[in-house]
């Protein structure tokens, strides 16, 4: 068994390496998504290219079966993945943090009820909830997908928030704050949120990856954003039929999705190593 003093520096270096690798992968995709608002190599509906062209100087990622530029679609796909990820995690965080803190503060009965409710909803898989919401709405849209995924993520966030909040509430300084007359609202704002945000942040990053993956699955199944949006999942669905003649069309969107998810996971791992003193000290 190696001693802490020798294990520590190598571990920290490795944590930093994963953090930077994650940052580069995610940063590259964020850049592509942001640039897509101002500039793409071609217009999304431009069918001027030949059908199923291989990657070339004119079309960096080749073209699809309608002659549209795939690199343009990949950039817009990055934008959509990021919007869905942020939107779903945002909705999930707002609902989850609010109910989680409420549960932690509530009376024993309400707390038990909410905790059980989180567990039940977690057993209800996110993708099924999302499909259900899409089924219930008349038309599939990007907003529906984001809302559905956000609702699906909220119980997971709620359960973690509840546990984290309870840990903070057990601390002496909360008792001190109560005794000195601080209101519950101020305690949540000044003591609870700052203490749970680092841990919650790492978890939300992981949820971001889940949301992006789930949106791609929905789009792949034809339940995501409708055609003008070039989601990576939909690109994969369209490219599947021509995978033999044009493999790059099926490889590249999946690779982009893979890069974003693994980038986020690495980033989360790196952040956890920085924030979590217990892990940092081995």
């Amino acid at each position, binding site marked *: 068994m190696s001693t802490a003093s020798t294990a520590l520096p190598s571990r920290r270096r490795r944590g930093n390496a994963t953090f930077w690798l994650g940052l580069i992968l995610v940063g590259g995709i964020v850049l592509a998504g942001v640039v897509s608002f101002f500039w793409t190599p071609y217009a999304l509906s431009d069918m001027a290219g030949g059908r199923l062209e291989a990657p070339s100087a004119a079309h960096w990622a080749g073209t699809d079966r309608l002659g549209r530029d795939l690199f343009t679609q990949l950039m817009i796909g990055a934008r959509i993945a990021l919007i869905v990820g942020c939107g779903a995690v945002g909705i999930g965080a707002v609902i989850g943090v609010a109910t989680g803190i409420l549960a932690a503060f509530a009376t024993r009965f309400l707390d038990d009820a909410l905790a059980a409710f989180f567990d039940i909803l977690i057993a209800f898989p996110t993708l099924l909830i999302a499909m259900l*919401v899409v089924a219930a709405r008349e038309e599939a849209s990007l907003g529906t997908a984001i809302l559905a995924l956000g609702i699906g993520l909220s119980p997971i966030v709620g359960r973690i928030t509840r546990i984290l909040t309870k840990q903070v509430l057990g601390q002496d300084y909360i008792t001190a704050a109560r005794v000195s007359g601080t209101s519950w609202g101020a305690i949540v704002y000044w003591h609870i949120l700052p203490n749970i945000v680092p841990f919650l942040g790492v978890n939300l990053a992981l949820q971001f990856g889940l949301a992006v993956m789930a949106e791609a699955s929905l789009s792949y199944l*034809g339940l995501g954003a409708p055609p003008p949006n070039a989601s990576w999942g939909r690109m994969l669905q369209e490219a599947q039929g021509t*995978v033999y003649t044009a493999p790059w069309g099926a490889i590249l969107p*999946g690779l982009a999705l893979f890069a974003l998810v693994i980038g986020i996971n690495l980033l989360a791992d790196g952040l956890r190593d920085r924030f979590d003193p217990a892990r940092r000290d081995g």
Partner: protein
Amino acid sequence: MVRYMLRRLVILLLSLFIAAVVLFVLLRLLPGDPANALVGVGATPEQIAAAQAQLGSDQPLSLQFLTYLGDLARFDLGNSFVSRSSVLDEISRRLSVTLPLTLASFVLALVIAIPFGILAAVKADRWYGLLLSVISQIGIAVPVFWLGILLVYEFSLNLRLLPSGGFPLRGYADPGRAIESMVLPVLTIAIVMSASLMRYVRAATLEVLGSDFLRTARALGESHTGALMRHGLRNAAVPVVSVLGIELSTTFLGAVVVEQVFSLPGMGSMLLLGIQQRDYPNIQGVLIVSTLLVLLTGFLADILQRVLDPRLRKEAR
């Protein structure tokens, strides 16, 4: 133990009830009468009224809800709007594809994940231990349907070894082709699933490796491998079993997506077809049965966990 099982059973039934309520609310209270879906576009008001009477959607919601619960309690999932056939029959036909697919993938994933996960933990400081961890990190981020498409490209289109999709019309009466058409889907799910399982196995083993009881066993003269086999694995199994339930459910959901990649006639395609055709009884049936399976899995995992670990049985709950 019996008290715990009863308690857990009550939670299971309660969960199923809540799930049923959520389904009812989402499918009935949102815009659009299911009767419209039944008669189709361009129906006369009389036809719609007749369809409403047939479905009972002209009744007050409270009465509709009670009828719905009563039907569920009798396992009556109604008839499809489109094919008019029994939803339950259709589901059992579909499950004969989805369940073998799920279970075979899950077992294969375990067969891969357990030895490699333990190896990754025991040899964490060797290059191959590290390599295994990196591979599992990579596997977790691979989109399952993408892997399916890539496997089809390589094994069906390039090497022409296996069918790229579909299922024999005669089903398992044609065992050779049925098994052939399952190989790639099972591989697809198992590879992705084993990556995340491996991470849990590795973490649980690492935890055990640093434990006091293992050090004591070593001090009492057991070999490292012997101590790990006799005391370590059972302890490492407890946290792994608790995620197995979730992982099995995830496998089931992965199957729903992967069925689409390989055009297998399972629960996933039934749900998608139902959504496209607004076939509410089919959608509701698939979701109820899927939720039941997911909840049952969690129930069994919790029980199994307590069988494995007597310490948990002593807890107050």
